């Protein structure tokens, strides 16, 4: 393998890893705080992508310069989170706290089914193409190859999201309260923390991150039914590899999955789909709780 090939695989892998990391970050945050593995997370990604497709169409309609579509995508993600997070968390998931975790998994599966059809009802089945924003950053030369600047911008966005969540959790008062709730919701409640609000906040940020990843990857893909199904399985692999509830774990997991996939696409295209699960299975064999998870004591 030439050096140029390795470079290509690395750049492609990291670009892929960047948006995957944003999705997985939301998934891992929701799991860390609410102890819910959200099967509908991929649908939230899809809704974000659709919303971005609709919102960016408004930019030329109002006669604004194309750069505003970046802002439009951000607003789209925010709008999705503002609408869906309260409905799902307060309206539905709240009813199942403290119940069997597999039961909650099934509830989120039901939400996935519902959202699949709701997106079809709202946006129809024809694909949307949001190619405008992808031209905003021009092309960048790395080695001998040119890369679309927008793709590299995604890496920056992922870094910002990761840093923001990490700083928010560890350096702000609210973040410390969230950590306290993760550690023990009952004691936190006794100390005067409104645990319900913390749950809603964490779920809101999680939904926002999924929708954000959907919104900013919309220019890379054709937005159509079925994108949610693959995203959820990929982001699951990421958080399982990294360890559920761990931010650095999500980053490493995303890089592993992204680069493994890119390498597979270049070297063995037949293996593209299953190499990711193979990596996940191998990691789990050696690190049963994922790379970054501390093993928990068994209860007697």
């Amino acid at each position, binding site marked *: 393998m030439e050096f140029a090939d390795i470079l290509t695989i690395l750049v492609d892998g990291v670009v892929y890893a960047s948006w995957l990391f944003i999705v997985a970050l939301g998934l891992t945050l929701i799991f860390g705080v609410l102890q819910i*593995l959200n*099967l509908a997370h991929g649908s939230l990604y899809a809704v974000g992508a659709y919303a971005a497709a609709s919102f960016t169409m408004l930019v030329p309609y109002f006669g604004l310069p194309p750069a505003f579509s970046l802002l439009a995508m951000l607003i789209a993600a925010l709008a999705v989170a503002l609408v869906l997070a309260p409905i799902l968390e307060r309206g*539905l998931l709240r*009813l*199942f706290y403290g*119940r069997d*975790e*597999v*039961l909650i*998994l*099934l*509830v989120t*599966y*039901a*939400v*996935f*089914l*519902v959202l*699949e*059809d*709701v997106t*079809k*009802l709202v946006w129809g089945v024809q694909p949307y193409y949001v190619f405008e924003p992808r031209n905003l950053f021009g092309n960048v030369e790395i080695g001998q190859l040119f890369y679309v600047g927008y793709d590299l911008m995604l890496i920056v966005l992922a870094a910002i999201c990761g840093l923001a969540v990490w700083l928010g959790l560890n350096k702000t008062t609210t973040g410390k309260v969230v950590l306290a709730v993760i550690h023990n919701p009952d004691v936190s409640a006794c100390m005067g923390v409104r645990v319900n609000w913390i749950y809603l906040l964490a779920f809101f940020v999680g939904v926002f991150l999924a929708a954000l990843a959907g919104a900013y990857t919309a220019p890379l893909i054709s937005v159509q039914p079925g994108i949610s*199904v693959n995203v959820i*399985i990929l982001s*699951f*692999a990421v958080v*399982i590899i990294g360890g*559920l509830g761990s931010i650095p774990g999500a980053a490493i997991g995303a890089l592993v999955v992204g680069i493994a996939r890119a390498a597979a696409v270049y070297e063995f295209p*037949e*293996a*593209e*789909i*299953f190499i990711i*699960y*193979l990596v*996940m*299975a191998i990691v*789990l*064999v050696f690190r*049963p*709780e994922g790379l970054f998870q501390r093993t928990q004591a*068994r*209860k*007697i």
Partner: protein
Amino acid sequence: MHASTKRTCLAGLIAVILLVLAGFVFQHWQTWILFTATKAIGYGLVALGIITLMRGGLVSFGQGLVYCTGAYASGLMATRLGVTDAPVLLVVGMLASALLALIVSPLIARYRGIFFAMLTVALSMVLYGVLVKMNAIGGSDGFTLPEPTFLGWQPSVDYADLALYLLAAVVAVVASTATRLYYDSMAGLVALAVRENELRVEYLGSSVFKVTVRHFTIAGALGGLGGTLNGMALGHIDPLFSFWTTSGEFVFIAVLAGYISVSAVFLSAMILELVRSFSNLYFPETWQLILGGFLIVVIVFLPGGIGSFWERVKEGRAARAQAEQEEGAGS
């Protein structure tokens, strides 16, 4: 023979007779029900495997793995080797899936809860990924199966659905009677203890690992039966048999049924199939929406599943009887 064993076998016998009679009734009245029921039995068998796991405190979200393995093993047997005898194919599918489950179970028996569920999903998606790329056996399109025969007898087109339904009914009753007998045996009851507290079971000298391996293998065999049966009913198999959304439906059926009753599994599979058929017919655009809504309603109002319904009725009757007795003693 133990009294409860006798009762279980008798219940099985009555169930076979009723199902066979129902088959002949529907043959002349509403033939489409036979096809739906056969499919529901296929789903129900897989869900019966999940329930077996649930009794040991585990839920597999990747039973598509064994479902698909059974369907492909028997399907390849039929298309490549020309074996079209349905009972033989069922045995082949069952053994292939049980073998696969036995091989992977030592690996996954170390996991619990979400990790167990996700690792099973991962395995089923590996199979999906492999099958999609294997163009020699149809790739993502899958392949069509020949019409099954029954011990050398080839039913005419009018009776094909009935024949398959009758076979399915017998398989369903035999499988559920056998699992019921297993649940009530000493080995099967240990599973309930594992569900409550693994460490104590280990201290008492039973192996949780062995229980898990045994259950996963049983679930594999049942999954293989279900996959083969549905392959024959649909006449076509494709890699989607192993996709995670298919596995999600199995978990749905199992949770809807609850882990207490074995017959509730087939009832809830039938309910799912009917809801699916009707919403497919009347709301073709939004059947997933309806299915999801139905699922949420069931989980909210019947958290223990349909099987717990009987238990609740029984408990209610016992409580009322006790209240009456106390009243009588008081006066």
